[in-house]
């Protein structure tokens, strides 16, 4: 019954998305049309039904309903309960259902809550959102039905990939999906504004929270995914330039560019067409990511099933939406008049420069990701890894970080570099000093040294906008920018430090043996078999101590799951403020001279590696602050309006004293 209800809910939502589309189109033709009324309710009900379908599937997984094919192939009655739940999206159909549910939910929130846009623009937006949703409903219903029944219920399920049996699966995919699919709203809004020629600052203010929200989730999802891969795979790496990782990075790069450009549009009425283009690009990258991951053109732990039919279906949708959007863009872009002017040395100028740099990095990542697929068409198999991505990306990332440190210090519209010459000199001096210092200390890779120097300069640069201001009166949104930029510096510092200073030791150790890694004394005490709910393992008892301190006991494991049968490696970590010790146990390594059995132990000391993820969290937190700040300003402005002219004059006076447009906001618009 559950499965049938879920399927019915999906079909109904698909039908409602058609209604949304038609009603939206009616409203676009004539805002007074009586048929235009249905778009918003259709969006809301559609969201309700799609989310309901998702919860029904969640329920089926919770009770392990083995008459449903998807549950039978991907779950197991003996699995811990939390992994039964998270296993709902640990497979192709379930994760697509989550995708579609988030898509519908975004559309529902948009239709239900957004009241600031002109009716025509809103109708066009909902029409586009309905059209996008319809394509993905069709994909679900025609080629990836999650509710398919088995003719005869299975006796036991096939189980979930052990690598996915981790709390990471509860966090990483849902947050990433909210980010991916939240960008669909930015796409629909951009198309709606383009179709109705309403690319205005007001439109940008409506779009901005959506972009910020999606971006926060993307940032958080990528950070969580990186940390998950780091501790779960047991390889000691935190980013592998795996195509699937790139698939999540590309929308993030586009969304980062978009959120800065939409800020310029909201504050300064510039960059109109560029913002629209980025809106299209960001969601295109989301869909491309979905295509790469879900179509089977890539194989990775993320690609659950290889089915050419699904691949061509998503590719078709991708072509339809991106192609359609580009055609409309080409037709309409000329009629969007140019916004306000600005000089090269202004905050807009810096933002534009970094927008272009982000797009260039996006191009580098995109080409590197697609290149193996292209050569494969000519029967040449290549893989593209860090030797390509790191230097090619750095060519554009380094200028971007430099401008990023300086940009927020510039004024809007026009500024003289001489005004901030002290800050410029300070940042340059710090960067040069660090390069010199690190170069004296040892022989490290150029990129790592530059990364260290830039991260410190950027960290200082991120805080400089606070200089000479009353800390208590700095608007929340500005704190958001500072937190996010500082987060980038923190993350960059972690990356550079990890790549420059990591020490590693691989040894065959018998119980009682000890090794020294970067000041850590590592002793193998014993190796014993242990068992968990659905696995058995070899667990090493390792004592790790730095200097004279009391040793910490670590238990890295080499696990064997029995359903599905698969070994995994469970790393053990010691986290300190200045880095992480990472210990993995491998196979038996034969007998040593004294006749004791030896085990392979691999240990890394990674200085400041945790900063990578702290930075990621800070970036996301900055985004949240920024959203909160906007809401505050919004509420303030509304109450200000209500309180009459005198109060409004006050707010304007406050705004203009910061060099802002009068009435834009009580707070200066930061360039977070």
């Amino acid at each position, binding site marked *: 019954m559950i499965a049938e209800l879920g399927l019915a809910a999906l079909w109904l939502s698909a039908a409602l998305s058609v209604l949304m589309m038609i009603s939206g189109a009616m409203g676009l033709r004539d805002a007074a049309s009586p048929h235009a009324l249905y778009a918003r309710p259709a969006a809301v009900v559609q969201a309700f039904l799609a989310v309901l379908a998702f919860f029904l599937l969640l329920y089926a997984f919770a009770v392990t309903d083995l008459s449903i094919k998807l549950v039978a192939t991907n779950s197991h009655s003996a699995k811990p309960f939390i992994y039964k739940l998270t296993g709902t999206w640990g497979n192709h159909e379930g994760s697509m259902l989550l995708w579609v549910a988030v898509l519908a939910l975004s559309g529902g929130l948009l239709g239900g809550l957004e009241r600031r846009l002109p009716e025509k623009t809103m109708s066009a937006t909902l029409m586009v959102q309905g059209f996008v949703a319809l394509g993905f409903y069709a994909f679900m219903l025609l080629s990836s039905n999650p509710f398919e029944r088995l003719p005869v219920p299975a006796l036991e399920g096939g189980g979930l*990939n052990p*690598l996915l049996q981790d709390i990471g699966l509860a966090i990483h995919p849902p947050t990433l999906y909210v980010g991916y699919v939240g960008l669909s709203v930015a796409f629909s809004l951009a198309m709606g504004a383009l179709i109705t020629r309403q690319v205005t600052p007001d439109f940008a203010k409506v779009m901005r929270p959506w972009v910020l929200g999606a971006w926060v989730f993307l940032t958080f999802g990528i950070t969580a995914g990186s940390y998950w891969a780091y501790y779960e795979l047991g390889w000691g790496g935190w980013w592998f330039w795996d195509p699937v990782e790139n698939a999540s990075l590309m929308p993030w790069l586009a969304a980062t560019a978009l959120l800065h450009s939409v800020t310029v549009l909201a504050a300064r009425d510039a960059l109109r067409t560029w913002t629209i283009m980025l809106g299209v690009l960001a969601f295109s990258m989301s869909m491309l990511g979905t295509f790469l991951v879900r179509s089977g053109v890539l194989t990775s732990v993320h690609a659950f099933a290889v089915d050419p039919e699904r691949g061509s279906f998503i590719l078709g949708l991708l072509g339809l939406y991106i192609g359609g959007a580009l055609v409309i863009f080409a037709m309409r872009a000329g009629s969007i008049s140019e916004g306000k*002017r600005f000089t090269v*040395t202004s905050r807009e100028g810096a933002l534009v420069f970094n927008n272009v740099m982000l797009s260039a990095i996006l191009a*580098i990542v995109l080409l*590197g990701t697609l290149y193996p697929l292209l050569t494969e068409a000519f029967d040449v*198999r290549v893989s593209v890894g860090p030797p390509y991505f790191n230097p090619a990306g750095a060519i554009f990332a380094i200028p971007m970080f430099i401008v990023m440190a300086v940009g927020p210090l510039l004024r809007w519209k026009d500024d003289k570099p001489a005004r901030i010459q002290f800050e410029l000199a300070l940042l340059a001096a710090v960067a040069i000093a660090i390069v010199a210092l690190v170069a004296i200390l040892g022989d490290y890779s150029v990129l790592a040294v530059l990364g260290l120097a830039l991260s410190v300069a950027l960290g200082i640069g991120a805080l400089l906008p606070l200089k000479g201001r009353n800390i208590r009166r700095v608007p929340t949104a500005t704190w958001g920018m500072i937190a996010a930029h500082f987060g980038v510096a923190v993350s960059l510092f972690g990356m550079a430090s990890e790549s420059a200073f990591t020490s590693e030791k691989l040894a065959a150790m018998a119980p009682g043996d000890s090794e020294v890694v970067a000041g850590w004394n590592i002793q193998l005490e014993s190796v014993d078999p242990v068992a968990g709910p659905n696995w058995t393992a070899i667990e090493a008892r390792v004592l790790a101590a730095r200097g004279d301190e009391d040793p910490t006991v670590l238990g890295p494991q080499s696990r064997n799951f029995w359903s*599905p049968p698969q070994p995994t490696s469970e790393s053990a970590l010691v986290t300190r403020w200045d880095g992480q010790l990472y210990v993995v146990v491998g*196979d038996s390594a034969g007998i040593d001279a004294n006749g004791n059995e030896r085990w392979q132990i691999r240990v890394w000391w990674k200085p400041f590696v945790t900063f990578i993820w702290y930075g990621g969290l800070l970036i996301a937190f900055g985004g949240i602050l920024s959203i909160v700040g906007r809401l505050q300003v919004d509420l303030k402005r509304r109450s200000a309006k209500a309180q009459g002219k005198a109060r409004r004059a006050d707010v304007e006076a406050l705004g203009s004293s910061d060099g802002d447009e009068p009435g834009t906001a009580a707070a200066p618009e930061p360039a977070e």
Partner: protein
Amino acid sequence: MAMKAKHQRMTLVILALVAIVAAGLIAAWALRSQANYFYLPEQMSAEPPAVGQPVRLGGMVQPGSIATQADGITVDFIVTGNEDSSVPVTYSGILPDLFVEGSGVVAEGSLQSDGTFLATNLLAKHDENYVPRELEGLEGHDGNDDYAETVAGLE
């Protein structure tokens, strides 16, 4: 500095285009020099890559060939392809979870002057759904036909 609005838009478009084209050119150039080419054992015997050049070697681990050296962490094994070709591989490190004899493996590393392949990283099958792409169709008892096809496609 201030330009006419129309000109400013043109300038911006040109700037963006230049940057993107530059990115494309850099990518194309870097991909040619940095892409890691995939070799089957027979290809490595016939046209060996330059000594020290990073490449990937993919094939089957010959049954009975895995030998751990006295240090306990260096492993020697032989990767076989079609046509009885084989390449000896040396690897120091923890073996991937599903690295077993008679199974597929992709070794990242470079060919040494003595003809052995020094691997810096091994990719083995992770689970039923995760096979290194190069090895698709190479796995298992029914893999022979597919394997022949894969190789035919490469030659």
